[in-house]
């Protein structure tokens, strides 16, 4: 049994084939959910967002004129669902979400040490201004090129590049700030020595 190609399914679904559509949405549910999770950092929220994204999927597939843009289209779909959701909820509870989920997956990577470092960086990424955060999540979290990210966000490619640059600068500053606070209570400074 050979799986039908993505573009075949898209074509059929655009023509109104509900089985093709079902196959398509089932196949990409996981992808959409993963994107939603990246932005919401909470499984329940991600499920809600993905559900809405699936409905948008149904409404929008007819207007996807260029199947080559499917991937970025899917991202935009989910991101719009994320924004709607966050507007509904009324607040972005990203930080709490990150805190909530962290202890459930302690250091699966390697050590608590690297997990902690990762957690610190993550916290800073989610604390970025929204536009920069979206660019970072798309490019580094989603493995999109600057051009693709630009399509998702409907901005110029150079704008994405600029946001990435600015976000990185901010992160470096934040992380350095964490590592180089002055010792407290007037500890003699190393600068004074040879």
């Amino acid at each position, binding site marked *: 049994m050979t799986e039908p190609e993505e573009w075949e399914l898209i074509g059929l679904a655009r023509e*109104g084939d509900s089985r093709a559509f079902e196959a398509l949405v089932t196949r990409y549910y996981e992808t959409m959910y993963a994107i939603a999770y990246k932005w919401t950092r909470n499984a329940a929220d991600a499920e809600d967002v993905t559900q809405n994204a699936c409905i948008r999927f149904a409404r929008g597939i007819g207007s996807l004129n260029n199947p080559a843009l499917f991937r970025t289209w899917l991202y935009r779909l989910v991101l719009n669902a994320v924004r709607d959701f966050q507007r509904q909820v009324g607040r972005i509870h990203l930080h709490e979400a990150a805190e909530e989920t962290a202890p459930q997956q302690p250091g699966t990577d390697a050590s608590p040490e690297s997990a902690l470092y990762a957690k610190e960086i993550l916290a800073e990424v989610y604390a970025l201004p929204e536009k920069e955060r979206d660019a970072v999540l798309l490019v580094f979290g989603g493995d999109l090129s600057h051009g693709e990210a630009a399509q998702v966000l409907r901005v110029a490619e150079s704008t994405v590049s600029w946001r990435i640059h600015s976000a990185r600068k901010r992160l470096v500053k934040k992380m350095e700030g964490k590592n180089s606070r002055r010792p407290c209570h007037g500890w003699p400074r190393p600068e004074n020595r040879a």
Partner: protein
Amino acid sequence: MDGRDLKTVLENVKTPPPGENARKRAVNLALAEFERTQREKEKNFKGSGIASRLTGMTAQKRRDPMKKKYVYGGLATAMVVVLAATVSFQQLLENPKGGFTAELTKVDLSVAGTPADENVSASYRLRMAEADVTRVEEALRTGQSALPTPMPQKEMAANTAGRSATEMPQNFVATAPSVVMDDTVLQPGYQDIGRDQFENFEENPVKVVREEPVSTFSVDVDTASYAFVRRQINNGVLPQKDAVRIEEMINYFDYDYPLPETKEEPFKPTVTVVPSPWAEGRKLVHIGIKGYDIAPDEKPKSNLVFLLDVSGSMNAPDKLPLLKNSFKLLLETLGPDDTVAIVTYAGNAGTVLEPTKASEKAKIMSALENLNAGGATAGAEGIRQAYGLAKSSFDKDAVNRVILATDGDFNVGITNREELKDFVERERMSGIFLSVLGFGQGNLNDHMMQTLAQNGNGVAAYIDTLSEARKVLVEEASSTLFPIAKDVKIQVEFNPATVAEYRLIGYETRALNREDFNNDAVDAGDIGAGHTVTAIYEITPVGGPRTMDETRYAQAEEHKADTDFGDEYGFLKIRYKNPDSDTSKLITTPIPAKEFSPQRNERSATQWRNTTWSTAVAGFGQILKGGKYTGDFSYDDVIELAQSAKGDDPFGYRAEFINLVRLAKSAAAMEKNAP
């Protein structure tokens, strides 16, 4: 931070698998919406040629299979669930390999040092990772559930605990990328830590100078506490408070204190006064001592008897095999004329190797290799035989030493601690010293180790890795084996005119009475060649933030003029005996009431580094003990101080320490979050 860093971090964010119901609901809702849209299109475009043709076709296609939709839906969903599980779990497995493990391995390797170690640990870890992948692939092929089935909590705890005691090599717990293991290991509480026995003690309290101006203690060059603490933290658990002996943590590290000019004086104290980093207005008085080192050709001969515990509980990779490897390392450092003997104790004590010259390496090696663990422990019998052998090859110009290696209890024979202590003490008088090496965890009798080593004029060290074995037995071989001074006592008299209160950090288990200082009959700690000893007092200068109010009548007394020594915080006295002497000598130096200000020269830089590093370690130890006196001084502050004073760190011990503080920070955070 570069893009790669960010990418790794973001890619390693694990997405928990979505709920199956949520997925079904979403797909079905989408399908309904899809069909609604199609119907609407149909309605809107009726009449238009193309549209009607298209929609007509789809409507036809759609209606018939409509009833079967949910069947399809269910099937498709079920298939995807399996697929999704495969994908996400594989991601889980791949990530640790590609992501943080690489970084971690790097850190570990830098600690490990010799190429042999690197190979062992790196390849071992790789094998473990591969084994895990294979196991999961196997499960996938045979169609078993690919998701980690949650093991019942009890069973899992039993498994892990059992393994840590039997077959699990050191480091495995902390670093092997096994999903199930890591999850459980980081949950504190179930580990077999309760049976390690530590002497209970409270942190030294703050003393009022006017009431108790003199502080006396014995030096302590043991490092066992640090190694034990490290092992606990590496397992994701904060150590028991009694396991933390701050002075042993500080003294684990080597400091470049200035050496005495002549051998006549075995060491020279360096006193540094700095502001306390955890309490505004207080100061630290930092006392550093380094013993002179013996040049290799001046080393006296060694007459060593290894007393090895081969009881059943030693049958674990981090015990007997590690012990064998450790002793092989030690053998390498011995001269050809040094003698070695091996006595084991397990049920029946037995002499495995009669005193043999170190040049007959093959004979010693094969005796070592033939050791097997099994039987009950009868430490006392073993000790008698060991001392017997040491006596039979006694050489008054040599260092005669019994080296006891054990994982804990002395189950049979003299189990009375006092009796055993007396035995060791008597033998010490006859010139045979005792060192104790602790192995393993869960059964370790730290208190006994300390007692025996202290009474045997030796060191107690805890060996958890081969790298630790190398540190204790090779790098510090001369200090472990060759004492340059014995019964070293420190006494500080504070000046009530300048100091209101003081507190000695650590050395709780080494406190001496004031009158013991001048009593040469009172035993105290020993210093080996090249050993460093550091002691830190926190003082509150007069007028500073005191913890206790001045008593009414003391206030009245304050006006008495004792200004002669206004530029001194106190007076430091060190008493010691030469290794073969019974009369003590005295070294004294005043403690200036002047803060250290780093100058632009190498000596000053070294002094700054020594002080800063040991203060960082002292801060860490105090936090681990509950942070009673350190206020809001945090793990981050420790890291910050330590980072700035890391220096050359050729063996990576300091980098390892900083890593340890980070681990402790996350272990503390997790304990806080735990219910």
